[in-house]
């Protein structure tokens, strides 16, 4: 525990750590769900690898190669501790969440699914945790099942009885369900799903079920503990948590990873290659073929350090406050024009607010906001099945992170007023 943990998060001070605000002091960045901004320590760490000890990993005997290998493998340990993996070998570095999920789908997924089995996802999944499973099910002749949502934009398998959470997977997850892939936090609705309880019940129904968690929108914003969750696989991206683009993590249970077939073949993932046969390397290297994004991995360590210094309790509290502030301002300023899509209870919401305003097209809204340097996302946010449910082709999304403050929300509201005025 550092002292800073007890101090409320100060966005104005945090902003000073993000060089992009030196260049664009007027920037109102409300698109952190797409990618986060990068603080100086992360950028400097990238530079450090390229200027101080550029060398490939796991190969050279010379000093720089040893240094880069050590920095790379240190990061694996830091990540393992960060999400409470049992051992560092359970941490596979990938290009991002998408690759992590595809890795799982095309190895253990393909190996364990047969005709007549079931693959279950939810309607709120990002395409990256939807399409790989859908295609796998189609390929294998398995049933592709989708957990629908209720009117609170939460999974229909959950309900509350005098504030006690009840999970009922009956009918959705069965003994034939081989894979359950769910997001921890919806990138469009902000809904936080009670995955620990859902996974526990799914494992009761079928102890052999493989559970895959898309934690891309969770890991940057809240404490995630893979052992507490009880999941088999969990994927997330570095670039949404202050880290570099092109780097991500797939955390898998050691016993499963160990018996899985490789994902890609090539250098580093082999033990011995002969004309007659090839044997594969131990974990985690079996899943890291070729030269990885070394600088990116090394810099990821700095983003974790930075987030832990601020503390997830503070981050979560800060994002809750901003989300409530925005939700209130929207309903106050545009009482009959605004529709927000997300849970009603703040405890069930991440720092994401998607909305439609009047009959205005989200592209026009985003374009006019951009005139005042307000960056939001407009479109379907890679959740087309979800937008079918919402009944709109596109929404406008504002998402928060540690550098945002109430001034940003005020500017967004002012920008939206201007939009309504222009396009009235």
């Amino acid at each position, binding site marked *: 525990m550092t002292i800073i943990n007890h101090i409320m998060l100060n966005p104005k001070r945090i902003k000073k750590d993000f060089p992009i605000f030196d260049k664009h002091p007027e920037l109102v960045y409300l698109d952190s769900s797409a990618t986060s901004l990068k603080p100086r320590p992360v950028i400097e760490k990238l530079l450090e690898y390229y200027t101080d000890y550029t060398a490939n990993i796991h190969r050279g005997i010379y000093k720089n190669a040893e240094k880069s290998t050590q920095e790379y493998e240190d990061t694996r340990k830091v990540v393992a501790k960060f999400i409470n993996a049992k051992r560092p070998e359970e941490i596979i570095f990938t290009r991002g969440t998408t690759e992590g999920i595809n890795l799982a789908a095309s190895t253990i997924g393909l190996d364990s699914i047969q005709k007549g089995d079931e693959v279950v996802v939810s309607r709120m999944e990002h395409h990256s945790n939807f399409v790989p499973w859908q295609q796998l099910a189609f390929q294998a002749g398995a049933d592709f099942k989708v957990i629908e949502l209720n009117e609170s934009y939460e999974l229909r398998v959950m309900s509350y009885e005098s504030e006690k959470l009840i999970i009922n997977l009956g009918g959705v997850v069965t003994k034939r369900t081989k894979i359950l892939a769910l997001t921890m936090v919806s990138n469009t609705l902000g809904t936080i799903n009670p995955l620990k309880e859902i996974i526990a019940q799914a494992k009761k129904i079928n102890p052999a079920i493989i559970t895959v968690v898309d934690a891309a929108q969770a890991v940057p914003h809240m404490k995630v503990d893979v052992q507490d969750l009880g999941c088999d696989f969990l994927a997330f991206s570095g670039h949404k948590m202050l880290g570099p683009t092109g780097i991500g993590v797939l955390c898998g249970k050691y016993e499963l990873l160990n018996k899985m077939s490789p994902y890609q073949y090539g250098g580093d993932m082999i033990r011995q290659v002969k004309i007659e046969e090839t044997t594969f390397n131990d974990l985690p290297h079996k899943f890291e073929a070729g030269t990885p994004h070394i600088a990116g991995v090394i810099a990821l360590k700095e983003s974790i350090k930075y987030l832990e210094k601020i503390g997830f309790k503070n981050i979560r509290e800060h994002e809750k406050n901003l989300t409530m502030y925005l939700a209130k301002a929207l309903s106050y300023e545009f009482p009959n024009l605004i529709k927000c899509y997300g849970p009603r209870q703040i405890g069930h919401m991440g720092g994401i607010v998607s909305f439609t305003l009047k009959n205005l*097209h*989200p*592209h026009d809204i985003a374009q006019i906001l951009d005139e005042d340097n307000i960056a939001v996302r407009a479109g379907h946010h890679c959740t087309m099945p979800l937008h079918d449910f919402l009944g709109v082709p596109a929404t406008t999304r504002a998402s928060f992170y540690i550098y945002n403050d109430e001034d940003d929300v005020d500017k967004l509201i002012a920008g939206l007023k201007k939009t309504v005025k*222009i*396009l009235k």
Partner: protein
Amino acid sequence: MSIYGDIILDHYHYPRNFKKLNKSSKKVHVDNPLCGDSIDLAINVKDDHVQDIAFQGQGCAISLASASLLTEYVKGKKISEVKNIDTDSVLKLLNIELSPNRIKCALLPWEAFMKLMTN
């Protein structure tokens, strides 16, 4: 500078040729699944001229204004004169600088018109 200038806003608020063409000789539907925009374009050709043209659909201000401007431009003209209209000409009608992402919005009506001309 705002791209929502007078011409765009005029055509967005008061789109020309935004109607149904009941006895159209040709109809086409195009959409952009990325943003959910869609346009139905219908045309009547008589004596090698665009006798009437109409559109309906949903979209952003840019794509609606573009459809309005394009239909206004081609109406009454000879087919040979408009059948090869290029993207630059359409963007000139809009008279604004668009980012690559928004050019797609602006050209959806043109795409529909090209389909009408080639089918």
